[in-house]
């Protein structure tokens, strides 16, 4: 009996000793789980992988990276939140517009002030503010995310198709109404006649599952100076002027479809689909919330996996054929002030390795790491740090210069930064729903706008 007790004690002491000896090694060998939206380009993902490699070498913390298609990120994250097994760090292009404000409000996010505030001065104006969100549990605002990059609205045009239709870039009108008439009534019939192909003048995103559709619609609203919320997030939709502006914006947006100037499938387009239509040359122009369209051709021009002919085609398209432009003047003749959308990542409050996750974010946000990542997107994303914005990369060609000019000319934030409930409206995509009520269900525009306003009040009022 006595010998059994002594044996058991010895075993316990040996076990404790073994644990004590291996404990530091266990901490060293910690693994963090990172979920990240898949990039459009290989160079973007390569830059992220390079940063991860450097981080692992520097800290000894292993990073388990999972990359998902953008449209899968929210459903996967929602399922993870429900099961309680969330990643340690997560980033998606859709979090900020569709969910992050809500998660912050519900107290599901970790406060990142301790890593954001020390680097506050590195951020450009109107960037870090996007991560300052309200938490209804703590009843205060704090940094519940980290800003990574931003985007804004651009117009992409096939210059060679325009020429084939018998027009030059200088022929593109700058007045609002003339501009849309030009693509619809002049360019489309002319290009069809010249090529014998079913080509459309405009690529107008209208899909409920696309962020492009509401980002484009916001530009139409801005053209009519529609202000849905004030700076405190209070709704202004009861103002008759707002309703009137919305009716004009929705009418102009849907007229393009009704007149047959945008592909019929644009009502079901997801985010990549207007890009695909443009690349396939089934549309002459489209408005897009990044220059990913032009950047794709740049990537082709430098892609060693492609043939010489394909690389040459990429070079030709990027350097000669594709035009990156702005919207026309607003109907009242003023210049439209574009919205910018700051993309943010996050850490969940119930993540297992928050300290290591924060370490990873702090490391990623260092200039040497964040710049290659943003520039790896070939101009699709604009930086949020002052140093990166001053990089020669943005002066390297006409497309990037156009982006730089647009951002440095001043942008406005989206409504969800003032009233988080707009993330719900964006997620439901009430804007695209209103468009579809008009074009698919033949509801009059004013009725569709009244329904839209009613829904905005119901959700965000």
């Amino acid at each position, binding site marked *: 009996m006595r010998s059994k007790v002594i044996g058991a004690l010895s075993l316990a002491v040996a076990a404790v000793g073994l644990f004590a000896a291996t404990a530091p090694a266990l901490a060293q060998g910690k693994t963090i789980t990172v979920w990240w939206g898949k990039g459009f380009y290989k160079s973007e993902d390569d830059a992220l992988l390079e940063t991860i490699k450097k981080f692992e070498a520097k800290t000894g913390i292993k990073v388990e990276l999972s990359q998902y298609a953008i449209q899968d990120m929210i459903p996967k994250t929602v399922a993870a939140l429900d099961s309680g097994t969330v990643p340690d760090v997560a980033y998606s292009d859709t979090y900020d517009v569709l969910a992050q404000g809500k998660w912050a409000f519900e107290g599901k996010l970790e406060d990142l002030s301790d890593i954001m505030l020390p680097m506050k001065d590195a951020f450009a104006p109107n960037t870090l503010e996007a991560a300052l969100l309200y938490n209804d549990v703590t009843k205060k605002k704090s940094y519940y995310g980290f800003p990574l990059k931003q985007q804004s609205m651009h117009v992409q045009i096939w210059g060679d198709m325009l020429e084939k239709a018998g027009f030059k870039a200088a022929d593109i009108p700058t007045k609002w109404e003339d501009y849309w008439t030009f693509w619809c009534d002049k360019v489309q019939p002319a290009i069809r006649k010249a090529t014998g192909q079913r080509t459309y003048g405009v690529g107008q995103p209208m899909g409920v599952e696309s962020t492009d559709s509401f980002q484009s619609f916001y530009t139409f609203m801005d053209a009519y100076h529609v202000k849905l919320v004030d700076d405190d997030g209070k709704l202004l939709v009861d103002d008759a002027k707002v309703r009137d502006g919305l009716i004009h914006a929705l009418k102009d947006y849907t007229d393009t479809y009704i007149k047959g100037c945008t592909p019929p499938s644009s009502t079901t387009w997801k985010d990549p689909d207007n890009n695909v239509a443009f690349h396939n040359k089934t549309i002459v122009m489209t408005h897009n919330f990044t220059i990913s369209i032009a950047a794709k051709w740049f990537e082709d021009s430098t892609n060693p996996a492609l043939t010489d002919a394909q690389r040459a085609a990429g070079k030709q398209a990027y350097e000669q054929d594709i035009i990156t432009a702005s919207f026309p003047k607003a109907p009242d003749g003023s210049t439209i002030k574009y919205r910018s959308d700051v993309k943010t990542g996050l850490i969940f409050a119930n993540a297992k390795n928050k300290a290591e996750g924060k370490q990873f974010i702090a490391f990623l946000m260092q200039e040497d790491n964040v710049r290659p990542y943003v520039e790896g997107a070939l101009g699709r994303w604009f930086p949020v740090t002052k140093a990166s914005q001053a990089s020669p990369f943005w002066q390297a060609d006409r497309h990037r210069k156009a982006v730089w000019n647009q951002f440095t000319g001043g942008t406005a934030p989206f409504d969800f930064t003032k009233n988080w409930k707009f993330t719900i409206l964006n997620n439901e995509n009430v804007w695209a729903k209103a468009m*579809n009520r008009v074009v698919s269900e033949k509801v009059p525009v004013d009725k569709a706008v009244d329904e839209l306003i009613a829904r905005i009040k119901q959700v965000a009022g």
Partner: protein
Amino acid sequence: MAITLSASDVPSPPLSARLSPPQVWGIVLLAPYLLVFLAFVVYPVCYGLWLARHPASYVALYHDPIFARAAVNTLIFLVIGINIKMLIALFLSGFFAQQRPWIRWLSVIFILPWAVPSIPTILSVRFMLNPEWGVVNQLIFKFTGDDGPNWLNDPAVALAMAIGVHIWKSLPFWTLILLTGRLAISHDLYEASDVDGANWWQKFRYITWPSMQTLYITCTLLSMIWTLGDFNSVYLLTGGGPADLTHVLSTLGIRYLRLDQLSLAMASIVCAMPFVLPLVYYMMKRLSR
């Protein structure tokens, strides 16, 4: 002193001793299946019901016009889609019952849509029906100069297309089942009817249909149960679009998941139960006769 023990005082032998070796083996061999069944069927179903337990979710569903639309679409799918499919299958089974060599070859081709996995076949149809670059509208444009219909962008047409794809995909299976039923009917009955001078309709009405009625109704019930859970036809073809107008109950859950509303996603699936359970009960009752 003698002690007498009552039967209840005698300890019963352990369970393993009371079971015969075949029974023990039976349990051992059954255990893995039971564990898998519990882990992958019972647990997810119970967890889903648990997530859908909030009455507020059902109130929210009731107020969501998309839910009402999905419920109506589901009914259209069940009433129109299944009846068209089963009727076509019934008559096609008569066609394939003919004893001709070329029909055997044709039946091999006919079975392909059912045999090939859903994702490539339905996506192929989706590409063919794309209004801009799909082969169907390309041909229409080539020969008429007209843009062609918006196959998948008009809600009514898109739903009709989804029903069409569902019929095309599952028709071979039901035709095959009904064909086996037809082949089981005694040939003597048809020979006797020939002697009596019966035409094809009379043969169908007085011999074929009475012999196949039970099988046909059972197949229809089973098809209804399966169709209620048919996610592929709608999701792969229209994705529920345009503007969520072609969703059915089986695809609606995905929409709510995308909207960060997990309890509504589960509640929308639970809402299909009142459709499914009576069908299952009625079918089991028929089968047990």
